[in-house]
């Protein structure tokens, strides 16, 4: 697997994504600097692009709004348009929404506080490169760490119908409730995909839960699913 991890000024989960892709998954993982206009991994097209968490450009404007306009994002959009798998985590999810790669918006948490803690996620919706093969109804324990993760969309019913709600905040036994919703997201939505299914964004941090020494390895299932997807379909895109 060749993975490109986009690096904006203010990205701070870039090292973490590179660590999991490179050292836990054994991929060839490289940073893609925001001022670049092409995505390459040691001279090759990447198999996957990860937009990591952090505070791109300080997020002094709306979270992700500045990064969405940086040169590298044109290349990410082209990669995604050609069907390449893109995983957008936390600030990456915010950037993907601002860039139009994903629908909806992420706003201030209902608590008005930054929330850093484990949550439970139900995997559902249509198959994506990051969830294909994860058994239906599987509940993942993965941490969140954000102040602006309240997902809003004008037509949640359509998203649901199209199977584009991929992760939902639930309690430990899978129940959907307000108590299990850490930020006030509509319909407890934690992550979605685009219409084609190849771009997935989520607020929780799977890279922080990919090794049992950190308390949970549930997040690694996303990267395992990606590996399996690429093994089945080793075409190079982008």
């Amino acid at each position: 697997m060749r993975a490109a991890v986009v690096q904006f000024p203010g990205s701070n989960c870039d090292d973490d994504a590179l660590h999991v892709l490179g050292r836990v998954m054994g991929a060839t993982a490289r940073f893609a600097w925001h001022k670049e206009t092409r995505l390459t991994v040691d001279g090759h097209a990447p198999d996957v692009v990860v937009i990591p968490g952090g505070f791109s450009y300080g997020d002094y404007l709306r979270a992700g709004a500045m990064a969405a306009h940086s040169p590298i994002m044109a290349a990410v959009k082209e990669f995604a348009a050609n069907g390449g798998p893109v995983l957008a985590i936390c600030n990456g999810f915010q950037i993907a929404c601002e860039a139009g790669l994903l629908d909806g918006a992420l706003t201030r948490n209902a608590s008005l506080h930054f929330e850093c803690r484990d949550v439970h996620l139900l995997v559902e919706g249509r198959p994506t490169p990051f969830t294909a093969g994860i058994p239906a109804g599987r509940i993942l324990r993965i941490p969140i760490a954000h102040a602006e993760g309240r997902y809003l969309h004008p037509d949640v019913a359509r998203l649901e119908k199209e199977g584009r709600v991929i992760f939902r905040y639930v309690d430990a036994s899978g129940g959907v409730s307000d108590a299990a919703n850490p930020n006030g997201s509509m319909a407890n939505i934690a992550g979605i995909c685009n219409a084609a299914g190849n771009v997935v964004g989520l607020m929780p941090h799977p890279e922080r839960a990919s090794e049992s020494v950190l308390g949970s390895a549930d997040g690694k299932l996303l990267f395992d699913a990606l590996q399996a997807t690429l093994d089945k379909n080793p075409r190079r895109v982008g």
Partner: protein
Amino acid sequence: MAHHGHEPTVDAQLAREHGLSADEYARILQILGRPPTFTELGIFSVMWSEHCSYKSSRVHLRGLPTSGPRVIQGPGENAGVVDIGDGQAIVFKMESHNHPSFIEPYQGAATGVGGILRDVFTMGARPIACLDSLRFGRPEHPKTRHLVEGVVAGIAGYGNAFGVPTVGGEVYFDDSYDGNILVNAMAVGLARTDRIFKGNASGLGNPVLYVGAKTGRDGIHGATMASAEFDDASESKRPTVQVGDPFTEKLLLEACLELMGSGVLVGIQDMGAAGLTSSSIEMAARAGNGLELDLDAVPRRETGMTGYELMLSESQERMLAVVQRGREAEALAIFAKWDLDAAVVGRVTDTGRIVVKHESRTIADLPIEPLAEGLRYERPFARPPEQDARQQLDVSSLTPPSDLGATLVALMGSPNIASKEWIFRQYDHMVRVGTVQRPGAADAAVVRILDGAPDPAEAKGVALATDCNSRFCFLDPFEGARLAVAECYRNLSTVGAEPLATTDCLNFGNPERPENMWQLVEAIRGLGDACRALETPVVSGNVSLYNDTDGKSIKPTPTVGMVGLIGRAADAVGQAFPLDEKDEGVAIALLGVNTDEIGGSEYLARVHGRVAGRPPQLHAAREAAVGKACRALVAARLLRSAHDCSEGGLAVALAESCITGAHPVGANVRLEDDLRPDLLLFGEAPSRIVISYPAAREAEVKALVAVAGAPFARLGLVGGSRLVIAGKAGSLVDVPVAELRRAWQTGFKTIVT
């Protein structure tokens, strides 16, 4: 020496307004042989402030142990450095930001975090963790809620965006902090031993680079403000508080680390308190050189700034770097890549003087040595006459509570003991995928060291903790400081880490009052005594004096921070009893000895409304033996949990082990000590750790404890849904763990929600 038209006339009166005494001003006249210029007066006033010069504490700090086999850099640099093997070093320091945080809690706390992070990365280390030791006034004080919310949000706002996990610390409430809160921030970084940088302006003719954010008028005389008492007018000093920009700091970190890897860097120092003034003078002093500065080259964000303002600004996120002559372009290119300002603002000379030019005029020309050496005062100190009365406590006059279970529930809900989850949930404590023991899960935070680890699952780790019980220090500053060191040492030992070295943040009142000075002297003596005995040398630290408001001093608070090393981070144990009860079950035991010492305890304060008596006595040899035993048990992977006894004593420690896990569980315990029950349950004797382990392996546990020479007592078994504690005379406590948990979960939250 040119004088500017509209600059104030420099005289003794203006010097006094700058916080300089008549004697100090006379000394300046004597050094210069002429009156100083306005800019020079400003430079002297900040360099000779308590904050920058340590003039009251320095003679006493000399008594601290500062060397050891692991110490690479002791006090005197931007931060201390210890060796953790494999060519790696931990760089760490703690610093106060008390006064700014009281005036403007969000920015005060945020820039406190920013400042200590720069102290660590200026030495070549990437920050891997932060901790914050906070002290607020009474929960019911009208300002407390606002201050708690602002400080916590400020720490979160800066650390989270910068990308350093905030993994621990402490929070206490006491009326002595009503008008003067404490915000002590500790940063910990990882460096390579062959790439540690110092604040050294060496190499004649080498260029001096200004890098980072532009200079504005913020924070002028922050160091002077930190060196004076507070009064009603202090809140009008809000403009002296700086404003933090964690995004720029993050860029500055990456650019500085890149510069350090490039081979062109000679020396570098953070522009912290007293900004360009102290960074340039301290760097020149360390190298025994002089420096010429051209202020016209300084990047600025405001127009019309005077030389005085440029020299004294405390604008954040700036560094001063000396690079090799002829390689300026390489350095400037790195900062351009990160979109940061950088400019050559001076060069290294051999004159031993700092010469400052502004708009083609020389506005300051001063000898470095007296500025950097500062002043040294041997201020008078005296044990206050009321100290004897404070230590009086007739235990027989205290009526024991009729329901000890209800007392335990009440203590669990004390804001000093209750869960601080509301706080640490706002801190990103997991970024950098290193946090193996999260805040609240163990007595110390544990962060694994991924760099250089062949297998991330087997990586070594550092354990981190901060501690100080200011009631103990108030009742006996010598013993209180020793106890703070011992608790930190114990916290690291509970997770299985070998304590390596110490940083401190000494928060005291006005040193011009002999009783405050006595507290400081005694606390430093206690710190030195305990750090010598436990072999944890002091490698860095900070002194914050003048923590008084309207003449009322805080309780003496010598906060201690410590770093320990654990060979395999995954081995670290948490504080919660495990749920499973396979085979013979999980046994509970105590490493250490129970006593009836109750002076200065949370129980005495909360239940009997008194802060009195003598703090418990520390036996350093026993502390070392208990720590060694616990570390050996963790290394042998025999323990399921370990938790030290601190505020609330043995009963609270047992209750916390029952309720702080993901799945609360009960315990059945029997205590064989012949002690008055309330003192036995809630006394705060040090050197005690409650452990749990598979009962079937007790023989192995006892063998290792015996080798370490630590006292051991089997207490009982984990299980059920109640905490049951029996004494020799019968049942003492029998409470559902759900009730303990409810009290513990809500006790602090009610203050802020």
